[in-house]
């Protein structure tokens, strides 16, 4: 019980780091890692709060991890495809969808 407060604090910090990473970095790989960071921050929140609200939170963590794994597979594949095409993973240069 006593660990809930610090746990939530850590997860909040991790989440904010993730958000700023996504906002500020240009490298697609780093961006990707920041997204993972945010997901895991949320996972930590789930686990911490499951001690109060029951095991449903822990179950959700598994779902999130599954989705994150799938997303990593697809995302990395896309990044590799982009890299092969552009010889770069800098998002600044990738704006083909500009209207």
């Amino acid at each position, binding site marked *: 019980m006593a660990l809930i407060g610090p746990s939530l604090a850590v997860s909040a910090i991790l989440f904010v780091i993730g*958000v700023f990473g*996504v*906002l500020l970095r*240009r490298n697609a790989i780093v*961006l990707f890692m920041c997204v993972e960071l945010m997901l895991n921050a949320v996972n930590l929140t789930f686990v911490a709060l499951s001690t109060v609200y029951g095991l449903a939170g822990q179950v959700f963590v598994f779902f999130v991890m599954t989705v994150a794994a799938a997303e990593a597979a697809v995302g990395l594949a896309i990044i590799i495809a982009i890299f092969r095409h552009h010889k770069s993973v800098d*998002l*600044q240069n*990738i*704006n*083909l*969808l*500009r*209207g």
Partner: protein
Amino acid sequence: MHLPFELGGLAQGQAASGAPVEGAVVAIIGLPLAGFLLNGALAILRPRAKAIVSVIGPAVLLASFAVSVMLFREMAALWHTSPNVTPVVTLWPWLPVGALNVPFAFQVDQLSMVMLLVVTGVGSLIHLFSVGYMRADEGYARYFAYLNLFVMFMLVLVLGASFPMMFIGWEGVGLCSYLLIGFWFTEQANADAGKKAFVMNRIGDFGFLVAMMLIWRAFGSLNFIDVFSRAPAVLPAGGALVTAITLFLFLGCTGKSAQIPLYTWLPDAMAGPTPVSALIHAATMVTAGVYLIARANVLFALAPVSQLVVAGIGALTALFAATIALRQYDIKKVLAYSTVSQLGYMFLGVGTGAISTGMFHLVTHAFFKALLFLGSGSVIHAMHHAYEASHRHEDAQDMRNMGGLAQYMPWTTGLMVVATLAIAGVPPLSGFFSKDEILAVAFGRGGTEPLFRLYWAMATVAALLTAYYMARLIAMTFFGENRTGTESARHLHEAPWIMTGPLLVLGILSIVGGALNVPAFAQDFLTPARLEFWLQPVTAAGADIATRLGTAAHTPEGTTETALLLLAIVIAVGGLVLGWATTLRARILPARDSSPDRGFWKVLYRKYYVDELYDRYVVQPLVRFSRTVLWRTVDQGVIDGGLVNGSARLSRAVGWIGSRLQTGQVGLYVVLFLVGALYILGTVAWP
């Protein structure tokens, strides 16, 4: 199981109980409709099957006429005891919209009975004539399909039990008239004539529609029996509303019945086959306006101003058209203007309030004018064949190319002379009685309303002109020396019996038709079978109102009557002699060699330039207005530019703004996403 016998017994039982009217009405209208469907199908599927068309076309009409006669006998017996019985045959509810309830219903009264017999009787004869006249035509089946359809609509018009029912027929006959005027549509002039007739009639129909709406507002009903029985209570006599209603109705009549100012379509309508001119543009359809006024006589009696207008336009048209007919060379054009003129007489007759005089002239005119048109058809038929056989291209309708046809066509000549005497008003032929009656009542109403004296004078002059131009027509066509050319004249011959037969019947009717409404002075030595008494149940209400208002029509009596009578005879005979003598004495050259008319004759020949005036001051401005304002401004500018292209431009502009947001920069998307997510979270947390 003796089903046929049981059914037969049932039908007889109904006949005894008085319900046969329904069956008869359905048969009378259904037979021409069936003829239209059959002939129409043949026209599409088997255009060469002429024998069967020759049977179906006239047979349905003859059958319809036979049923009409049977109905007439039955109803005459019924009306003998109870004249005010008006059977209404309601087939199904048609327009039950809110408070408006117009059933699909027909009504049989004395007035529609007269029209019924004229339409089916004269129609049958003209159908028979058409078998001979149109036999060689490619569109034979199509022709009979249209003709049958026309008769069907005409019967709906005269039997309809409400204004909208009548309007169905009114529009239907207009459609058939259009189709038949432009029957030989491969020639531009014919198609144009059809279009002109249609457009002119639309102007009149506008009046009819407005009148119907006004009647609906005033009465809340459009059924004849409702409207006419309640009219004296609902509409104050001489009021603005009833005057407006009747004048709008009369606008419809001027279109359909070719009166000033909408008459110009009728002479052009002669572009159609000649039997069509006889049936539609002389005997039946164009008299629909007279029938409408007779039908609505209660309303017109309530509006003396409208009566003045109707009679005035009638008298003016009678005179105006008669002067034009003086100098036409196309035999059908003379008859066309004569028709316009005679229709003017009818309107003068119904305009005085003496409905029976107008209806009487309608009936006798149907006889002798159908005869004149069919006779001219027989002449044109012969001329056409003569020119075709001798390979010459001359105008087969120009009277300057005729002359001396009496020796080739004795029957046609004799019957045309009979019709001419009838239309000129020589006693004791039918036209004398009917025209004299109209002149007499016009003179009689002049006693209280001096304007009618003027109308009487105009109509009397028109009578003189009528006799003159008809004598001119006969003299130019049938007498004097032949101008067809020796080569062609050898091929001139009398028409076959299927054409002269109907002429003969119409000739007999033209002679004895006057007996329908024998005037009072002649009743001592003729049976008083008066149309006036026959129509009394229909006209009584209007006559009562007229008596109350002091606008009743009186025929003059005593010495005045005798003087008028003698004047009519002198005018008829004088006009005939004058026309005969001047025409035979004049040197007439064939159309090809003759020089154009000069002076006032030219004005008459060019029909007072009315067509040119209409073209210049109505048609051309309308075309210009349509081109510059309606087409260039409204259509191209507002609709195409503003609405069609405008909406496209608007959505493109909105799309352009939307596309500016799509920078392709993932970072910006994330920022926007974050802002949006925070906003939603904010509204959830602090609602």
